[in-house]
């Protein structure tokens, strides 16, 4: 009985991985489609970053299994990483300013 329960679990996890894989491919397809739409650079950057963060979360949560690890591990790894990355954007508004102040 436990063997069949194990098998059911295996089957469920295989299905879950397939769903994650297909969603990642679909999100990639959306990104490529957007590139063909020739959007403005700033808007394009924001949309692509958002989609990429969704894809990264899917990979971390399911492929890297972090969703099923103990909360203490997640809390040790993720907030510090997110904080450091967010701080890197501190001077980012300057890039837009540089672009707009430049003589064209």
């Amino acid at each position, binding site marked *: 009985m436990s063997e069949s329960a194990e098998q059911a679990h295996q089957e469920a996890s295989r299905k879950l991985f397939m769903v994650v894989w297909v969603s990642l491919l679909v999100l990639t397809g959306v990104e*490529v489609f957007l*590139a*063909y739409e*020739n959007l403005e650079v700033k808007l394009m950057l924001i949309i692509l*970053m958002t989609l990429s963060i969704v894809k990264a979360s899917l990979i971390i949560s399911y492929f*890297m299994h972090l969703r099923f690890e103990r909360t203490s*591990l997640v809390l040790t790894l993720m907030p510090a990483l997110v904080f450091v990355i967010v701080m890197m954007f501190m001077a980012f508004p300057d890039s837009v300013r540089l672009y707009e102040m430049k003589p064209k």
Partner: protein
Amino acid sequence: MADETMSAHGLHAQAGAMESAWEGGGSPYAVGSKKLGMWLFIVSDAITFSALLVAYSYVRVASSLWPRPFESASIINATVMTGVLLSSSLTMVMAVRESKRDAVSKTVVWLLATAAGGILFDILHIREWLGLIHEGVRLFANPWGTPLFGAAFFSLTGLHMTHVTIGVVYLIVVALGFRRSKYSAEDVEVSGLYWHFVDLVWMFIFPLVYLMSAKLA
């Protein structure tokens, strides 16, 4: 006598407390030290890639003359590369699953399939590099616009390609070691964490480097 029992009981309670996760006993994260080590490496490597990507995005948004050398053929090539890398993550997940069931030969096959995906990715990427070099892109010069394009492109994709190549070697070593029972299922899982991370980084490089510099009708 009663005191003795009390103190023995007290000692026992203390020993119990020592084993609790937050008292420094046992395994606080319920993962092995190899897995924790790989996670810590991944976090620091993620910061390295973030620094490069943020710096690149800064220059990209600030430049009005950023080159857009990637036409449809390049974008299709890069999309195929993305598909290959994503699929190799799926085969890696399969390898980890089979290794936990002790299915040795299946694990080895899935691991080698993952490594093959990495090799295919490298070949397609080197083709792209050679094409750009042939068109005259150098680290600090290119025929089209902002000279920094070459440095940004080659350092970002080059660092990623180095990771893929190291990953291919790592996976092959783990596959051969797992077959000889030198490595355990945990080692396979840890190599999987690294491989998924390499895939994850590409999920940022592909849109930011390729799609933001595409010239499509």
